[in-house]
């Protein structure tokens, strides 16, 4: 009578004299697979840099009108539209006290329309104004390009206050160059500014600081809020 063969159960991870070193190898392979899966999940969070921010293209509103025949003498440049920013509140005014209620989209739209209507009523448009047939009544340029919206708005608002005194010599104005880093709060407030590269002329530096103090910036979009608050926003003032 022969003895029935006995089934022996062994762990694949354990040592098996028949397979020699294959057990620990398998364990290592599993560990490596786990590491790869973990890396695929976590590494992008560590390695992915924020998408480089494109430099904003300065966008001017396109003036409403018909393109002027280039053979004719030019018309005078249109006056720039008034700054859309309201001047900084004076201390002690109602606006400066307490938190300001955030306006609804509907209210903002109504205000903008009322402002546009007021401008249209008050301003005497040049009857021969050149521009584009699909342009804006408050536009100043004959052509424009799209820019990064938030940075375009920031540029626009600072530009509205970018004024240098006439008494500065033309030579100094022509080579004007200064850099200021501003740190912007979630509501658009300029928390602080640091002049990292002064112009070399105290009148100009004074005018730049004044321009920033007068500027009310829009609230940054959520994806940029932390960046412009912690790292700041570099403003390069040029002629």
């Amino acid at each position, binding site marked *: 009578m022969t003895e029935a063969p006995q089934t022996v159960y062994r762990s694949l991870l354990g040592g098996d004299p028949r397979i020699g070193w294959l057990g620990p190898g398998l364990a290592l392979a599993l560990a490596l697979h786990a590491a790869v899966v973990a890396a695929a999940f976590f590494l992008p969070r560590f390695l*992915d*840099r924020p998408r480089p921010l494109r430099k*904003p293209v300065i966008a001017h509103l396109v003036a409403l009108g018909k393109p002027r025949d280039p053979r004719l*003498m030019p*018309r005078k440049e249109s006056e720039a539209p008034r700054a859309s920013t309201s001047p900084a509140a004076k201390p002690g005014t109602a606006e400066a006290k307490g938190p300001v209620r955030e306006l609804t989209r509907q209210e903002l739209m109504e205000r903008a329309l009322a402002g546009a209507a007021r401008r249209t009523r008050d301003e005497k448009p040049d009857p021969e104004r050149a521009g584009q047939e699909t342009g804006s009544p408050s536009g100043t340029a004959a052509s424009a390009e799209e820019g990064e919206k938030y940075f375009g708005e920031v540029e626009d608002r600072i530009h509205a206050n970018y*004024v*240098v*005194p006439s008494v500065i*010599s033309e030579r100094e104005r022509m080579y004007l160059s200064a850099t200021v880093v501003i740190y912007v709060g979630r509501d658009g407030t300029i928390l602080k500014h640091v002049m990292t590269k002064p112009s070399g002329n105290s009148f100009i530096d004074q005018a730049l600081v004044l321009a920033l103090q007068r500027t009310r910036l829009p609230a940054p979009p959520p994806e940029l809020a932390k960046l412009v608050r912690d790292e700041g926003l570099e403003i390069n003032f040029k*002629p």
Partner: protein
Amino acid sequence: MKRLLLFALAAGTAAHAQRPSIDVSNARVQAYPIALAPHSGAPEGADVLEVLAADFDRSGLFRLLDPRSFLADPVKEGSSASTIDFSKWTAIGAQALVKAVARVEGDSVKVEFRLFDVPHAAELLRGDYSAPRVALRQIAHRFGDDVVRSFTQDPGVFQTRIAYVRETENGKQIVIADADGYGPQQITSGSINLLPAWVPDGRSLAFTSFRDGGGAHLFQVDLGTRAVQPLIKMGDFATGAVFSPDGIRFAFSASKEENTDIWLSPIEGGILRRLTDSRGIDISASWSPDGRRLAFVSDRAGSPQIYTMAADGSDVRRVTFQGNYNQEPAWSPKGDLIAFSGRDEHRVFDLYVVNVQTGKVARLTQNEGTNEKPSWAPNGRLIVYSSTRSGKKQLWTILPDGTNARQVTNEARGASDPAWGPLPRR
């Protein structure tokens, strides 16, 4: 695994957020807010300050603050940096402050002026300025020029003079007046006299006149003796003399053999040189500030346009391509712009400037009468021209960006053809 973590940490540090940057350019230039504090001392100080205020206003450099807004008591607070309460001047937006103390000494008036930088509470300029009582205005002009130089490093032009043509019952006469139009003196009498042009030393003027019959020719008048001498008499007519910046030669237009061209002559006389020789009409020469080139008008391409050429007549370049009637070029003292008058599609002449390098044309006047004959102030910060915007043709000044137009003359029958004189000799 440990190595992997270290790598991830390092990568995290490298991923430090990038600071965005924005370029802000095209600064607007704004007049500098200045306060002229009421004077103390002799009452003549008020007249001086009035002239100074008009100078500052016309220059476009300064914005005069309304005295009614002043918070400080200018007399009580004195006129030294240690006694002035600068916060009261800062509060009304003043960036600069002028203080004046006047006194009379015999027939002279003396004014002690001080200029302060308000934000820095510092004295920038101090000086005693005196003049005979009849020449009070000169005190204001001299101090005004010093203020302009103190801020801009450019010379001021308040002490300069302007020559122009006055309409009279007896034709057109050459007149010189202060740059603010004050004290006009008629230099010529009788006949028709046009197109005055300054010799760079400011001692004499050339002009075009019909005085000797036989057409228009060039004459020169000594401003000291008022003696008139013929300058050039050639061909059918000779007109529009302009002196080179070094004062050793002059260009003019002359018609000879039925062809009008630009010619060049040494100032002491001698061999004439023909600079242009086109079939069209070439007139109205204007020197570049370095004396190497001339701007002029030519209709060689079918309509009058602005051209430039080297001072020997070579290297002719067309500068304007818009419009069909551009004339009267005036090259700016800084060399970058040429001002001219051009006729638009409504057949009205207006002032323009063209950038010599880029050819870009900017319009300075529009919808305000006829505007012609630009002439630059010697510091390049103002242009004088004739305009009908107030009725009869009068002289006006304007900034090169087309702002701050101010009337200069108030001639009963009109004024035209202005030529801004050189800076006074020191």
